[in-house]
């Protein structure tokens, strides 16, 4: 078996939202929002440092989980991030990564949100690329939801078992 190519590159995605830091923080940390833009997943945690957090799918299963490393509302949220391996794939899940959300005011009524997915332990390149396909969809949806009250009608990318499903919630 060939070893997968590994990388410790980070993914950084910056976006600007017509909103307030508090609203952006809520959109990241409350299930009522995340179910509308995070491919149907509800987020769960008490958001205390050291607490567990997870993303729960509509069918009740959890496929992303970790610990809250830092929570400084509404500015900074740092979580460890583990994902379950994809169904029907031989490949083992990648090592834990660290996701940081930085929320800053960027002028008149605008917030700059910077998401950084860092890899203290190198991960296979294809998992990095999967994240790079997913984050723009997720965060574009977050922006639309906060600015228009409506999520974007996007399907989950790449993961074969979920491609049939639309996460369009009106």
């Amino acid at each position: 078996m060939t070893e997968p190519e590994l990388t410790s590159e980070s993914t950084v995605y910056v976006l600007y939202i017509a909103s307030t830091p508090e609203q952006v923080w809520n959109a990241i940390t409350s299930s009522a929002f995340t179910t509308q833009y995070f491919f149907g997943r509800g987020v769960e945690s008490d958001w205390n440092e050291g607490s567990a957090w997870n993303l729960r799918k509509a069918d009740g299963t959890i496929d992303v989980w970790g610990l809250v490393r830092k929570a400084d509302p509404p500015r900074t949220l740092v979580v460890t991030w583990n994902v379950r391996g994809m169904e029907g794939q031989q490949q083992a899940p990648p090592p834990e990564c660290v996701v940081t959300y930085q929320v800053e005011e960027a002028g008149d009524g605008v917030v700059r949100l910077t998401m950084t997915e860092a890899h203290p332990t190198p991960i296979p390149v294809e998992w990095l690329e999967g994240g790079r396909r997913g984050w723009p969809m997720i965060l574009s949806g977050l922006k639309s939801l906060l600015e228009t009250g409506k999520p974007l009608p996007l399907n989950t990318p790449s993961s074969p078992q979920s491609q049939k499903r639309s996460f369009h919630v009106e």
Partner: protein
Amino acid sequence: MSNSRFFYVTYIRTTPEKLWQALTAPEFTRQYWAGTWQDSEWKPGSSWKLMIPDGRVGDSGEVVEIEPGKRLVLTWRNEFMPELRAEAASRMTCELEPMGDTVKLTITHESETPDSKLIDSVSNGWPHLLASLKSLLETGSPLEETRHWPEGM
């Protein structure tokens, strides 16, 4: 191969036709792209200029490929900042792909200059103006800071 590269994807609730118009028509770009407009005939081989509101040329280049509603490739050289102007021309590729009621917009801006200052500069600019473009198309209002050319620049 490129030595410096900026890559950004955003999804916008719109049509490829409206997005194309918003990317190329002066009455749209002036609203979200710091008051600038683009001077071009939009044909392969045409010259292309990004015009600063005070009449200066901000950037210039040539239309390499154009397929309205789908794809635009430009060469792109900075004209108003000496340090950036000294670099070889960069290349900007813009791709539009309809996905249901949204359009996936991909911007790739690359340069053969290692550690390109131009790519550094546009890496800060693109996310801001693309966010403003998305707001304009989805809500009718661009983001405040991108509406005008920055004073003293």
